[in-house]
């Protein structure tokens, strides 16, 4: 098993009352799964994804990731854990505008303290694989949205993560670009065995996955 959420609660205090963002979430994810989280705005999709990605904390419950109990880890270990195993893809790509495509890809490797020669090789592989060698010296703003997201996915993958978390990865793309990105996810999932959890509004995108989780008001339904 890759990860397991047990009775996760998350709330904020508002006007003296608890407003629940996540309520009693239980979830088991096996390696190689492709899960889509769906639900209306404000239902807690992104919050759940952030909790799984260890970017956000929760108030109650247990979270095991590869048999490590995340809720008891210190920030440093937690960041080591997600640095090692998790890649993020965002709706608005979140590439660093000051860096070229190549440098954006290199960034996670730097934080993993991988040697320069190895970094070069990995980046070259990734550029090759995503067919963006010709764009390596361009800055994100010089690319189309689809191309930016391609770089975003490549950057998420370069650290060879076990799990990719994608928050509405196609939300800013047109339908053709969307299909390409989703096809890419499918291929990564099937051929490389990467586990993927995506948040999406689109039924069509959700169908690329093997399982759908529906949320409403912070609850799994």
């Amino acid at each position, binding site marked *: 098993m890759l990860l397991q959420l047990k009775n996760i609660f998350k709330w904020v205090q508002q006007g003296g009352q608890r407003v629940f963002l996540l309520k009693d979430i239980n979830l088991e994810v096996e390696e190689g799964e492709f899960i889509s989280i769906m639900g209306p705005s404000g239902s807690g999709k*992104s919050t759940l994804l*952030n909790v799984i*990605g260890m*970017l*956000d904390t929760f108030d109650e419950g247990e979270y095991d990731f590869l048999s490590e109990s995340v809720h008891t880890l210190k*920030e*440093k270990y937690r*960041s080591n854990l*997600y*640095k090692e195993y998790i890649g*993020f893809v*965002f709706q608005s790509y*979140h*590439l*660093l*505008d*000051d*860096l070229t495509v190549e*440098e954006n890809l290199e*960034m*996670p490797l*730097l*934080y*993993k*303290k991988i040697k320069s020669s190895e970094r070069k090789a990995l980046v070259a592989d990734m550029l090759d694989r995503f067919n963006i060698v010709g764009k390596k010296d361009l800055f994100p703003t010089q690319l189309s949205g689809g191309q930016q997201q391609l770089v975003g996915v490549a*950057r998420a993958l370069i*650290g060879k993560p076990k799990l990719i978390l994608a928050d509405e990865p196609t939300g800013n793309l047109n339908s053709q670009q969307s299909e390409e990105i989703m096809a890419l996810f499918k291929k990564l999932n099937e051929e490389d065995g990467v586990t993927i959890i995506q948040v999406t509004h689109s039924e069509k995108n959700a169908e690329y996955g093997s399982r759908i989780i529906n949320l409403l008001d912070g609850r799994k339904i």
Partner: protein
Amino acid sequence: MFKNYIKIAWRSLKKQAFFTFLNTFGLAIGMAGALMISLYINDELSYDKMFADADRIYRIDADIKFGGAEIKAAESAPPMAGALKRDYSQVESTVRFRTLGSMYVKKVGSETSSKEDRVTYADSTFFEFFGIDLLVGNSKSALTGTNSLVLTKTAAEKYFGSTDVLGQDLLLDNSDTYTVTGVIDDMPKNSYFNEYSVFLAMAGNVGSREELWGSNNYFTFVKLIPEARVEDFQAPLQGMLERYMLPWAQKYFPGMTAESFAASGNYIRYHTIAFTDIHLHSDRSSEMNATSSMQNIYILSFIGLFLIILASVNFMNLSTAHSLKRAKEVGVRKTLGSNKMNLIFQFLTESGLIAFISLIAALLITMITLPFFNGFTGKSIAIPFSQPLFWLLLFAATILLGFFSGCYPAFFMSRFNPVKTLKGGASESVGNGRVRNALVIFQFSISVFLIVSTLVVFQQLNYIQSKDLGFTKDQVLLINEISPLGSKTNAFKEEILKMGNVENVTLSNFYPTPSWRSDTSFFQEGTKSQENAIQMQTWDVDMDYLKTLEMDVVAGRDFNKQYASDSTAIIINEATLPILNVTAQEALGMRISEEIDMENPSYYTIIGVVKDFHFKSLRENIGALGLHVENNAENMAVRLSGGDYSKSIAEIENIWNTMAPGQPFDYQFMDEAFYSTYNSEQKLSQIFFIFTILSIFIACLGLFGLAAFNAEKRTKEIGVRKVLGATVSQISYRLTVDFLKLVGVAILISLPLGWFAMNKWLEDFSYRIEIGFGVFVLAAVLAIMVAIVTVSYQSIKAAIVNPVKSLRSD
């Protein structure tokens, strides 16, 4: 990784050019200011350290109270040096100087002479004592002959065109012929002997060999043997009083004992001052060269520190404010696996880089401005590019500065929550800016403090310049060194009086301008004991003195040619009255004499009392003074009635040239001579002024950046308000008033501090202003106005943005 940090830092700085400029510029100005102040202080602290054995050299000072006057003497009696060498085994050698002020020097046979400003007699031990090498001549014998002198290189080249001048003759003040027996390098600028160019053999000074313990005219230096401790020398020094001073005095005041001397409240206290301490620590008024004070060093250090702190605070403010733009980056980096330390290092790299760019800019600024700075401080400071230590300190300071400035922003930004920043809630994570507000308050407190200080210093200077001095210093031309006129002096005076725009002319050696003067003891008729001596200055003047300088007689009368007896008349000032213990009217007709010990002393009769006029600096009280008529003047004062001064001067010079051909015509205006007393205050006020402007400028850079940030942060709010019908002026008012509150708090903090500090400073002046309410109002208004101007640009810019634009984003 580090390479990567640098690369990223460079790119993000380049991208945010405006922000980088504000940051770099502020920091560079702060650094340049601090660098210049450091160089200045370093120069001040380096005084006299270049001389060999400087650490073993001391000067003998004496605090003397005798006959109602207290003197802090830097000079000793002529036999002091010899007695010290004889009596104290710790003394290795001694040297004495007797300064002569300026002299006119010319090559024998030459037509024109030129003025050497600093001439002194020096003992023959001079060169060995200070380890000075002679370029030509023998260091042991150079200053032994009665009419020998040693020149500096510059002086030698001026008169002879080379330094190979042994045996050449020079004529001093058109009367005495001296033979050049040596040439030395010019005295270092940062030395006590700066600008001394002519050293005459002490052998030519008859007084130097007299066993006269009563007059202090010789700057006396001793060099202790290496094993000696100055404390062991200092204590027994007091023994000089009983061994030499009293036995000598008993010749004139029979029966005087150490007890009776002390019982009358008189004292002589000898002590030493380290040679290297003289420049900054001496409290003597007559020194061989202008000295400075530690107080100025402290003030400057504070200003330098202020500047750096201001610039650093600026940096913090701008960086944290700017972090809004960086929030997303922090979020992304965190999701990519960056931990806090990585981010902190990254931001510190950035601030380090800015610090180094600023350093380069600061060095450039310093190189450009240093000549001006040297110009008004009278120094020749250079950036010591070739000294490794300088670079080491500079780099260390820069790294430290980068670290200090970057620390807070780095920790601040590395704390951002990635979830929030990526969702676009950056303004939340940037926080409410309590720390930034505190920093703005801090900056403006310093600025307002400096404004208050500047205003007070200016007011005090203005007060000095406009104060009723008891004489009129304006429109008076002083002609120095008229002795070449010889017997034609009176004819010269008459010629000048004939000129249309000349009101009066007087001849005297004494004017109420800074110069070296000493007190003499006078005794009232009938006094038999020295305890009742009156210490007063006596000035030799001519009959037209009071009229020319427009001084008022409060009792009795002015000198008058019709009274033959006026040759033994004296006019005293009001300050003498309390010492005589009489009123002005009672003083008239009293007789006083210098000679108590004589059978038939010659008396001066008091014929008038002149209203007190300031002849010392306003830092000091007016002392006792007497004026009497004597014809030995070397200077002349001409009161002009206005009109074209340069024409009058040219006319006088013409007369001069016909009566004293080939002699230099040397003049200055009395008010200028007067102001030279306040050189150090004037310099201080200029320094204050410059650095106040700088500090306000830096604070404004910060405020400007902060206002930009604030406007950006509130873009949405402004948009909504506009949609709801707010006008541009309402919105810009809202944005501006927040900052004014901060400035207001700063004003409240700094005004009392400024009041306190400046009162301390004013204590040095016997005659000083009261710090008025107006200073504070003015400082406050200035600060507020500067703040409004700085902030309103950003506020108005934000307020006129089309709300459709600001509300469209996310």
